[in-house]
């Protein structure tokens, strides 16, 4: 056990090429997915927070429920979509990083949209009268609030990133865990553990935790500085 830990540390310290390839791909896939989900999810959440239409409550309930989508189920659905016989089979995306980005985007989008909806709706209570008095309502008001609470929304995006970087099921199914092509940290950890190669699994685990910690610390510093600067 201790031996495995020290070997793991050595792999990290010696910048083992195989390890860093995996780390790089993980970051590329998860950050792309979170970027896409943010781009769609924040305006979607804001529109849902401010808009009034029949069935709105139902949409909110469904969106909140989708936050708990099991990754393997999403993986399976995307797999079926992208498989050779599926509707998007011609794209040839299955078992590529592109398929993994797609699957993680689907997983993360409900989290970002639902949490943004709640944040904007809470803020809207404070802003609504003032903005309507200035002649601003609807989508324009939603975007104004979205921009005004942008630093609080960092936490929303981080929640999405946490989900993306931690999940195994979806990327395993649609990526296939192919060495050098679609192997990411979580699938590698699962594989190496089952093979009994604990040093690499532990090394990857430490890197994964360190990255998540660093991102959260960075976001915390930004929020802190913003709160002091803008009130």
């Amino acid at each position: 056990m201790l031996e495995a830990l020290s070997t793991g540390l050595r792999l990290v310290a010696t910048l083992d090429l195989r390890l860093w390839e995996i780390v790089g791909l993980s970051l590329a896939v998860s950050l792309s997915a979170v970027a896409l989900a943010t781009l769609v999810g924040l305006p979607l959440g804001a529109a849902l927070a401010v808009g009034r239409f029949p069935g709105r409550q139902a949409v909110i309930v469904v969106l909140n429920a989708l936050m708990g989508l099991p990754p393997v189920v999403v993986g399976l659905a995307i797999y079926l979509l992208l498989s050779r016989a599926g509707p998007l089979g011609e794209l040839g995306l299955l078992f590529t990083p592109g398929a993994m980005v797609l699957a993680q985007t689907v997983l993360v989008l409900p989290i970002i949209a639902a949490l943004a909806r709640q944040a904007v709706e809470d803020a809207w209570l404070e802003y609504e009268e003032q903005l309507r008095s200035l002649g601003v309502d609807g989508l324009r008001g939603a975007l104004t609030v979205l921009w005004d609470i942008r630093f609080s929304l960092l936490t929303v995006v981080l929640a999405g990133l946490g989900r993306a970087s931690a999940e195994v099921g979806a990327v395993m199914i649609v990526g296939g865990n192919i060495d050098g092509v679609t192997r990411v940290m979580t699938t590698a950890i699962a594989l190496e553990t089952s093979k009994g190669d604990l040093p690499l699994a532990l090394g990857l685990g430490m890197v994964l935790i360190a990255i998540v910690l660093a991102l959260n610390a960075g976001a915390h510093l930004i929020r802190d500085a913003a709160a002091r600067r803008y009130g």
Partner: protein
Amino acid sequence: MNGILPLQLEDVSYAAGGRKIIDRVSLALEAGSSTIILGANGAGKSVLMRLMHGLLAPSAGRVVWNTVGARRRQAMVFQRPVMLRRSALANVDYALQAAGVAPASRERLAREALAEVGLLAAAARPARVLSGGEQQRLALARAWALHPEVLFLDEPTASLDPGATREIENIIRAFDAAGTKIVMSTHSLGQARRLGDEVIYLHQGHVVERARFFPLPATTEAAAFVKGELPWA
């Protein structure tokens, strides 16, 4: 261009949660004189002004302005102003942009408005870190930039100290001098006397009296309020 005043309220009622907050109010507001709305907490002062300003829709009756397009020629300052997380100048600029003012003249108008309320030196400071009094002055600058024909003020000095209150009152006088019709609710009789030409007494959603300040009001409810008694006790 015709003025948006007079404003007519025709049998306006507003109910929320089964309770009538405003009950069949009919009145006309003319240009010129400053109107103060007095009344106890819960009398319906804020709701009445929100009905006039169009933030609330009446459950019955009509609110009629003299011309169409009156919405953009009025402004409102709230008890607690809401500032955007951007500079003081950008907050005024946002209001001008929302009102459809061309970009070329926005900065000049915004700076003029800040100068009017004595905040030009704070133009670049983030609005949310300004003091309560400064934020309320900024809210007035935001209204000033729009050159409204009517300015609604909902207890604008309720949470301010006497010094800040005096500054706010001076700015309200400047609006009045510039020809803006003032419609303001307040708890303070002194403030009502200093700023108002006429008073509307509101009691449990009814207008019980509308009068110049002197002689003292005729109805018991209004007289009790002026004498500092508690009409609801």
